[in-house]
């Protein structure tokens, strides 16, 4: 179980501190794929940064911490303050764009053993890497190439290979399929699901593509304007969303055979600089009332394991 306790993360800017993640608490069970969704600027990447423990200027963690639920080499529980030592061994990261995430002037195999723990022998590990890469449907020769000699799909597979090679407990994937075409996208998603099933580790998958979330995630976490709006099993969320924002996101998905015009979510998310009162979605919400505009809804468990932050969640279901 990975516990996030009231995370408040801010960015320092010339205008002052802006809260990019504002009081998020979350319990993530082990061995699942958690999808994090929300539009640009809602704080999902910042949440990922906090989860990875990459906190440095201009990002500050004001309150809260992450308890990872697994023990470090010293037998103590790993938290935000100690996670750095376990980067790529216990927690790893799959970046968005593989082209810019690989050093263009260094051969792949050299970049692979950048992650080498000091007590392992180079050639021995390289043999293991070759075998592992082969398992992921990649030609072992790809290791001897420079990044620009490989296709986008191969590069992304290599990134996945790097991130999963040491079998970490937690894998963070930040829109790992955004820059790829759908066929390659499918390959990468299947690979990720496959690996997760074999290794039984926890994966946190950030994407704004609800279709991808529907395909691969077990649980979903939806953010809006730095706040959590809904959290629960993916099936339950897609079947009966408890928050109007989630509902509108799902309704914007096209389905085969249905050709009428899709309704988008009208309006824009509020500026985090404004003095925000009440529900942050109220301005765009068709159900909003005076109560929504004045009082902020809490994240409440409506059915077992299904949380939503809406005054009218029951009405919606």
């Amino acid at each position, binding site marked *: 179980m990975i516990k996030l306790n009231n995370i408040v993360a801010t960015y320092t800017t010339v205008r002052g501190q802006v809260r990019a993640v504002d009081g998020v608490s979350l319990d993530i069970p082990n061995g699942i794929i958690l999808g994090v969704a929300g539009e640009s600027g809602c704080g999902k990447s910042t949440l990922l940064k906090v989860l990875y423990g990459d906190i440095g200027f201009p990002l500050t963690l004001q309150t809260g911490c992450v308890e990872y639920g697994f023990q470090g080499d010293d037998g103590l529980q790993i938290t935000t303050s100690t996670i750095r030592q376990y980067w790529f061994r216990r927690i790893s990261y799959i*970046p968005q*764009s593989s082209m810019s995430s690989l050093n263009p*002037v260094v051969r792949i195999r050299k970049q692979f053993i950048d*992650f080498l723990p000091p007590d392992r022998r180079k050639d021995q590990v390289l043999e293991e890497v070759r075998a592992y890469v082969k398992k992921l449907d990649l030609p072992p020769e790809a290791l001897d190439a420079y990044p620009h000699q490989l296709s986008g799909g191969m590069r992304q597979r290599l990134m996945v290979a790097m991130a999963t090679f040491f079998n970490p407990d937690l894998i963070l994937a930040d829109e790992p399929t955004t820059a790829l075409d759908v066929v390659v996208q499918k390959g990468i998603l299947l690979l990720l699901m496959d690996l997760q099933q074999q290794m039984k580790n926890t994966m946190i998958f950030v994407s704004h593509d609800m279709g991808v979330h529907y395909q691969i995630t077990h649980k979903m976490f939806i953010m809006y304007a730095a706040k959590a709006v809904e959290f629960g099993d993916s099936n339950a969320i897609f079947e009966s969303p408890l928050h109007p924002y989630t509902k509108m996101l799902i309704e914007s998905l096209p389905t085969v055979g249905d050709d009428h015009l899709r309704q988008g979510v009208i309006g824009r998310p509020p500026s985090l600089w404004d003095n925000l009162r009440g529900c942050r979605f109220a301005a765009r919400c068709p159900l909003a009332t005076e109560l929504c505009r004045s009082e902020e809804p809490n994240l409440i468990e409506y059915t077992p394991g299904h949380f939503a932050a809406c005054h009218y969640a029951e009405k919606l279901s």
Partner: protein
Amino acid sequence: MNSNLRLKIGLAILTVFTIGSLLLPFFNTVDPSQQGKYLKNLPMSSAHLLGTNSLGQDTFWFLVFAIRNSLLLGVAVSLCSTIISVLVGLSAGYIGGWYDRVVMLITDSFITIPILPILIVLGALVRGSTSFFSIGLILVVFSWAWNSRTIRSIALSVREREFINMARFSGMSTLGIILKEVFPYVYAYTVVGFINSILFVINTEAALAVIGLSNVRVPTLGSIIFWALNYNALFIGQFTWVVAPVVATVLLFLGLFLTSTGYNELFALRRGRV
């Protein structure tokens, strides 16, 4: 011209010069800088391949020692200044912040101080008695700054790339990132910079010697020209005394230049092959 051919010609010239100037001195028993050893102004012959000069020295042997000394000075100074400039440039560019500002202030001072007037003043103070070592030291002090500024600018741009973030995310140390991720980026540039530095050092030393500010008793490519000019070699018909060091210098420069551009292209090509 084909880059490989260019590199081959360049390396061939350098090899001949290096091996020749390093090995030949072992077959010589006379100190070439000793004056009045032979008759003056002898023409070319089998005993004196390039004749003797107005100081009674064998021109050929003096030239061999000169090439050796110039090359050694060039390589040694260039090696030191390249190491300094890479370390300073990469660390300033990657670490940034106040460290970068302080280091660049010093670097910029060294860039803006005009080197030749300083060297002339320094040379005038110690006129003619400068040791060969201190000439090298002075050249190191004045040759690292420009390269370190360009290397810093490369490091500055590389620092912001995503793969540096990935390297950091994989738990690499700052030194590890500088050496394993950023250095490969400036590697080819560094090699070319190293060769260019050799050119600069040989050139500057020659310039100092020609105006008599280096230690002209030590044979270098510059000191030959200094003595030749001093004794009006061209007027007394001692053409080999002037022409030989000039040809040698031009050939050496050509070799270094071809090697540097040829290597640059080879490095770019190599990344195109698996």
